[in-house]
């Protein structure tokens, strides 16, 4: 039977995939094809830039940016006659070559999808589809053929490390919880994904919720827990909905609840929706929040494995970590350990965002270089601009320069470079990004999201933010850099939780790799990337301007004057530096001046 897979992840829903689904069903009914063709709403394919995505099986035909109006063609040509609709095919950036088959697209070719394997290929709201792709086989193997100790050994053997960012060995963590004495234990899934630009956990929950549930069940069996919580942010309504559906279906079919698979193992699962605090992604704050209190981190030790929810031994892992577990149990720890590097095993999902051509999710084997991710999978930088830096690991991570593009992506190399794996957000920046401004952006985030409990984080991030703001406004002094470094060091050394300890990373890495930009702001009142508004002046090159008036007509501040066919000029006093005029000018006559160049205007 032919299947049409229509992505129903958040990205594709936003670009209209529900309408496409409705129209397709209508069209199939009309043409009497409804019986022969199955329409499946799937989770995310990770290629959100190209949504809505429609795949026709068999044939693996990949259509992108499909709109309602394209549906009749898909039905008439592809579904009825097996012809490909060329205009809906993906065109490779650069070559412009149209690609028919899903797996031939460069974006997918270099990926190795273990965790995302089912995302986009099964209906996440249908347990049977999960079962058809070996779903719950890992659990069966664990429950019926392995002791609890053997399960832990298998996970240890796999070398799996926490995908939430810190990279703690998962099997070892499970062993701690297993060894903690207690008649009641909990398993918690951290689905409070909050890093700006990161959405891999959301996509897994939306596309393959049973994999996460299965991972939690296996963990529950291993450590001796009979209850679990999924702490999911309330801003993920679709993920929450699919989890609820999955829990209900799994309970109905005996994969959750009492006497699971007839083995006497009991496990119930609850959903706790977060209230929007970034800090609740920190494990102790998350547990405090589950207990019904304000989400503020607690001191470790005691670690959750010893005293977690309501002081009971608790094992907490991130979504992606749990989603890796069923594969490990199905295929074996040593198979899993054959992927990746010596100390970082398996794959990692990255969310590619920023000035990259192929925005989306990419799952790659550990040890791949940053260059391969950004240029081979990501397609390089938008608009032919030059790569400048990549921010990895969210607000806690660091900015790595182009000199480090060949750095292997694994836990230890990244930490050594001053960044961290983090949850897997990759924000790509080009030459038009100011690194001081980037540091300021992330500090603004961490300051706003600081829980306020410990002094260094609450007060320290505020002062670092103020200093950075001052520098971007051209009011910085060279002593500010020393002050920043001193503060960053103390905050890193003394803050209570991971959020505070890593908050200075964006500053420390930009100072390490882009110190000259800080110095230019301070010493030359110059923003080399021409971003910081206080340090730039918009100016019209008199010889290049042909007086077409497009800029003047589009200026919301009425800052541009000049008669038709005469060179125009910008009044700096009125200019709000919004940049619309530059976009409008076809002559390339409008430029942003910074530093000494601005004297052109003053004179």
């Amino acid at each position, binding site marked *: 039977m032919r299947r049409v897979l229509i992505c129903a992840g958040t990205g594709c829903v936003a670009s209209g995939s529900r309408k496409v689904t409705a129209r397709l069903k209508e069209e199939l009914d009309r043409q009497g094809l409804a019986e022969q063709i199955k329409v499946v709403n799937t989770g995310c394919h990770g290629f959100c830039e190209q949504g809505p995505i429609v795949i026709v099986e068999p044939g693996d035909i990949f259509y992108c940016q499909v709109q309602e109006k394209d549906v009749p063609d898909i039905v008439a040509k592809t579904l009825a006659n097996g012809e490909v609709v060329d205009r809906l095919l993906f065109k490779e950036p650069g070559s412009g070559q149209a690609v028919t088959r899903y797996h031939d697209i460069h974006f997918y070719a270099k990926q190795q999808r273990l965790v995302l394997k089912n995302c986009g290929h099964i209906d996440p709201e249908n347990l049977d589809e999960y079962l058809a792709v070996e779903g719950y086989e890992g659990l069966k193997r664990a429950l019926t053929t392995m002791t609890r100790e053997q399960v832990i050994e298998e996970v240890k053997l796999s070398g799996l490390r926490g995908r939430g960012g810190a990279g703690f060995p998962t099997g070892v963590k499970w062993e701690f919880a297993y060894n903690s004495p207690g008649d009641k234990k909990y398993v918690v899934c951290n689905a409070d994904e909050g890093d700006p630009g990161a959405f891999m956990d959301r996509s897994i929950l939306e596309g393959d919720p049973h994999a996460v549930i299965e991972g939690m069940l296996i963990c529950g069996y291993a450590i001796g827990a009979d209850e679990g919580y999924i702490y999911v942010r309330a801003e993920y309504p679709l993920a929450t909905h699919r989890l609820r559906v999955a829990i209900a279906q799994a309970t109905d079919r005996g994969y959750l609840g009492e006497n699971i698979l007839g083995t006497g193992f009991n496990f119930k699962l609850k959903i706790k929706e977060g209230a929007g605090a970034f*800090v609740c992604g920190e494990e102790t704050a998350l547990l405090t929040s589950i207990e019904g209190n304000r989400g503020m981190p607690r001191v470790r030790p005691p670690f959750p494995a010893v005293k977690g929810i309501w002081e009971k031994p608790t094992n907490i892992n991130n979504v992606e970590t749990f989603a890796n577990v069923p594969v490990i149990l199905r295929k074996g720890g040593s198979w899993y350990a054959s992927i990746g590097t010596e100390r970082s095993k398996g794959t990692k999902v990255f969310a590619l965002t920023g000035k990259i051509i192929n925005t989306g999710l990419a799952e790659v084997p550990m040890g791949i270089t940053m260059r391969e991710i950004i240029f081979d999978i990501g397609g390089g930088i938008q608009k032919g601009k030059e790569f400048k830096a990549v921010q990895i690991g969210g607000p806690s991570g660091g900015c790595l320069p182009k000199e480090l593009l060949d750095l292997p992506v694994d836990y230890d190399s990244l930490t050594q470079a001053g960044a961290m794996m983090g949850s897997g957000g990759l924000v790509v920046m080009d030459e038009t990004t100011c690194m001081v401004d980037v540091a300021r952006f992330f500090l603004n985030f961490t300051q706003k999201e600081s829980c306020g409990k410990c002094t260094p984080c609450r007060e320290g991030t505020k002062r670092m933010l103020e200093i950075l703001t001052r520098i971007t406004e051209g009011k910085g002094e060279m002593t500010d850099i020393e002050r920043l470094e001193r503060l960053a060091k103390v905050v890193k050394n003394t803050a209570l939780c991971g959020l505070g300890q890593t908050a200075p990373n964006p500053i420390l890495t930009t100072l390490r790799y882009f110190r000259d930009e800080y110095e230019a702001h301070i010493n030359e009142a110059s923003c080399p990337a021409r971003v910081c508004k206080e340090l730039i002046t918009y100016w019209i090159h008199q010889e290049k301007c042909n007086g077409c008036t497009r800029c003047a007509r589009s200026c919301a501040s009425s800052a541009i004057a000049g008669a038709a066919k005469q060179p125009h000029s910008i009044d700096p006093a009125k200019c709000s530096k919004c940049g619309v005029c530059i976009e409008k000018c076809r002559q390339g006559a409008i430029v942003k001046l910074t530093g000494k160049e601005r004297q052109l205007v003053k004179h």
Partner: protein
Amino acid sequence: MSTVTLTIDGIKVTVPEGTTVLEAARQAGIAIPTLCHDPELSAPGACRLCVVEIQNMRNLPASCVTTAAEGMVVSTCSETVVEARRTILELLLANHPEDCLTCAKSGECALQDYAYQYGVRKAGFAGERHDYPLDESNPFIVRDLNKCILCGKCVRACDEIQGRTVINFAFRGFATKVATPMDLPLGESDCVFCGSCISVCPVGALTPKQMLGTGRVWEMRKVRTICPYCGTGCTIELNVKDGKVVGITSTPEGTVNGRALCVKGRFGYNFIHHPDRLTAPLIKQPDGSFREADWDEAIALVAEKFGAIKTAHGSDALAVMASARCTNEDNFLANKLARAVFGTNNIDHCARL
């Protein structure tokens, strides 16, 4: 009990298992500054002023929440530690009104003391400061959140000592503050004004309103006594200046109550110097007015009248009602008076006020 031996600043210290590094250091006579730590309250490890350097440990752990372990090597005054503490103090001062000249807490303010000790003269990080209005909406507690360093002791005292949980942290980042539900003034909240929060506040954020302007800390003579209100027997300290009680404070050394007191015990002392207070016995005149008498005359008169009643109507015509404000000793004597002198078992006690 098993013990552990660790080295702190080169000194070998043996402490019971489970002791924190902070306590171990204190036992060895090494002072470590703290703002949020309090032996009577749970330990959040929040202010980070007590950080120390421990060999083979990442970063600078807070000594108040780090358990001493066998063989641990701790440094409490390395350059890194002192630099961290100075920076933390600078950060706190950068957002603290510099009005020690008029602050009621001056002289017993932990922030002031540590700033002095670590030589932090001026905040190195100029920038935004809080500008909260003063909360004086009630008769007892002045809340100046601009002075608050968010150590959270008041939050824990309200919860763990008084069991009221009227206050907690609200908002995030720089906007974090201690607030009542809906951020209402204290007077409109469920606060019972026990003042436990005042007793634990290390700075001038929470001060007793009635004591404002009555004298500086160092001018007060503290007289330790027992609260006169009820039978609990809480220890209080009268703050005496120029022979006048100007306030009541509690002390961690109070054997019954620690620093907890109730609203009456802590704030209900105005009767002491009240002009209406009786200071001599009064004898009622035939015309209904009162005449001042001395104690001998008054007691002789009462004894005579009690004797007359007992003779005329028997012992059980008399009864004694003692006050809860009397001490145990007073009540013991009242008991003797009733049973041995009056010859009656008619004696009772109001039990509470």
